[in-house]
């Protein structure tokens, strides 16, 4: 099976600072990939380059940004427009062949049909995030990049959003998401990428990460990540 997303030797520099240092990975169709790591690891930069909102200093990303659906961390929606109006506007801007049909499809998929005429500014955070993700799916992209999709949502809203995302993945969409919530990665991701200081330190399943960290008990991936990062830091220290 050919990869839906292929990231190769990605480097991003902001002047002296190297935000990404040669990051490479693939994602298969239908695969859910979590990007985790401490603050400033380069997670948002990686997602932004995949989505095409930032340019890489070097390295390549396949497919082109137009074929990647992107949902930024803060819902990028017009608060004064309704759910349906937001969907239709972006469907037209995406030059979707039948904008009305695309709007209907997304209203159905997100379960927001009853809220279609409601202004986005009056929606709950969870529903707003669902519309945010729905906008990313209008052009039916093979890859979906989500930057902290569940941040600021309550547990029930988070649960509903993940049901929606997992259903998308089951439909064949490769989903790459960044998160601070490691348990979320453990629960929903097929693979986890650990980024720290712009370097990709780990690429494997959540279970493999816990094994590498020496955590026998599979319940605590958060602790596994902390131990993993501490060990890598200890290994890296003498060599510096």
């Amino acid at each position, binding site marked *: 099976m050919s990869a839906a997303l292929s990231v190769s030797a990605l480097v991003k520099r902001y002047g002296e600072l190297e935000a990404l240092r040669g990051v490479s990975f693939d994602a298969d169709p239908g695969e859910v990939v979590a990007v985790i790591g401490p603050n400033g690891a380069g997670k948002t930069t990686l997602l932004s380059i995949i*989505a*095409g*909102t930032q340019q890489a200093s070097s390295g390549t990303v396949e497919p082109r*940004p*137009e074929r990647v659906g*992107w949902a*930024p961390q*803060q*819902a*990028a*929606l*017009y*608060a*004064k*427009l309704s759910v349906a*109006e937001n969907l239709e*506007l*972006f469907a*037209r*801007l*995406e030059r979707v062949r039948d904008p009305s049909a695309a709007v209907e499809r997304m209203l159905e998929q997100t379960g927001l049909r009853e809220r279609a005429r409601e202004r986005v500014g009056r929606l709950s955070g969870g529903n707003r995030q669902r519309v945010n993700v729905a*906008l990313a799916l209008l052009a039916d992209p093979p890859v979906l990049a989500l930057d902290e999709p569940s941040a600021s949502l309550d547990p029930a809203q988070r649960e509903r959003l993940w049901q929606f995302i997992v259903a998308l993945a089951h439909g064949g969409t490769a989903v790459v998401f960044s998160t601070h919530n490691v348990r979320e990665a453990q629960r929903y991701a097929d693979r986890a990428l650990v980024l720290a200081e712009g370097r990709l330190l780990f690429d494997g399943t959540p279970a493999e990460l816990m094994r590498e960290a020496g955590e026998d008990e599979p319940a605590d991936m958060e602790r596994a990540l902390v131990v993993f990062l501490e060990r890598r830091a200890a290994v890296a220290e003498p060599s510096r």
Partner: protein
Amino acid sequence: MRSMLKKDLLILARSRLLVALLILYPVAIALLIGFAISRSPARPRVAIVDQTPAGETVQVGSQRVPVSRYTEELFSQVQSVPATSRARAIDQVKSGAVIAAVVIPPDIAARISSGVSSGTLEVLYNGDALEQSLVQSTLGSAIAQANLVFSQQIQRAAATAIDALLHGGDLAILGAPPNLIGLDEIPGALARVISRQPPGRSRSQLERIAAFAGFAAQNLSLSKRVLSTIGQPIQVDSRLLHGRRTPLNTFAVVVAVTVSLMFVCVLLAAGGVALEREDHTLARLVRGLISREALLAEKGLLAAGCSFAVSLAMLAGVGAFVPLDWSRAGLWLLALALGSVAFGALGLAIGALAREVRAASLLAFLLSLPLAFLALVPAGSVARGFYDAIGAVSFVFPFKAALQALDAAVNGASPAIGGSLLHLAGLTILFGALARVGLRRAE
């Protein structure tokens, strides 16, 4: 771009307060300016306390000039409100019913008649610096005009008295003998007497008197001309170097319309760009859905279109009160179009700097208001270096160029409209480029 334009119009339509302001603002300003200009008194309202006794006159030689001539002239220069006493006049000034009070003292005729001191009027006024300045300029010129007319009457009386001395006749002065000889007749009469006198002391004394009378008549005749020169030693012949003379009321209309054009356009353009950042949609849009240039053009054109319509409505509304030359309407449209596009570009640059609509609006106000104020500072009213600095600042912002373009379009004022339009086009390119850079940094 069409979808974005439709979206922005929909958002604008849903911002009820903004739409109400966009409609009500030009209507309210047009009515306000129209009424202010058309209903404002052409002459200032001034309380006049005339304390001179009825029939009081100023005596000039054999002539008498009634003091009422002066008060009549003063009344014609102002909208006079008669006051019975000084205290009553002060009350009227304090209440704002009049801008000032003029007290004509009872001894004014005696003082002028004495020939050693001039009469003194008392002017009472109140208010802030602006009102004080208004009183000084309007009342000062009214009093100067009345003084001039009164002094001309006194000159005429003095000239008549001099004529009587020169040419003689019945002087109509109590106690004056009838059929007096005139000064200019004395040398001839004396010459006839002298011719009959034998040479000697008496003859030479008569010859000296005749020479004096001739000299005196000659100089007295000259003094008539001197009198009129003293009354108004210098006359003013003013010439406008370029363009037509602009009436103050139509210039006020042009200023009001330009200020409205600026505020509506800059606020809408800045708000439109800032809204994309506030709703976090900017990054989503420019990742391939719409180019940055097209996005800026759409926002700029929407703001320019709205402000163009608003200011044109305002100009037409004011036109109901103030006579405007409608045959120049094509030039109005041109000036408003270029002005709105330049203000739109400035608004885009401001919007690209701000993260949210409120900050953009505040920034637009803070930048626009002083720039408009600076552009209205007249040359010569401030120090040369400061005026040059103001000129440089005004040059790089569109207000002054838009004002000059519209003034040239509406009033045919100088400088010519072509230069101002080119200036506005240049500023549009400059601020458009700055907005493009700002938008790139904003992402």
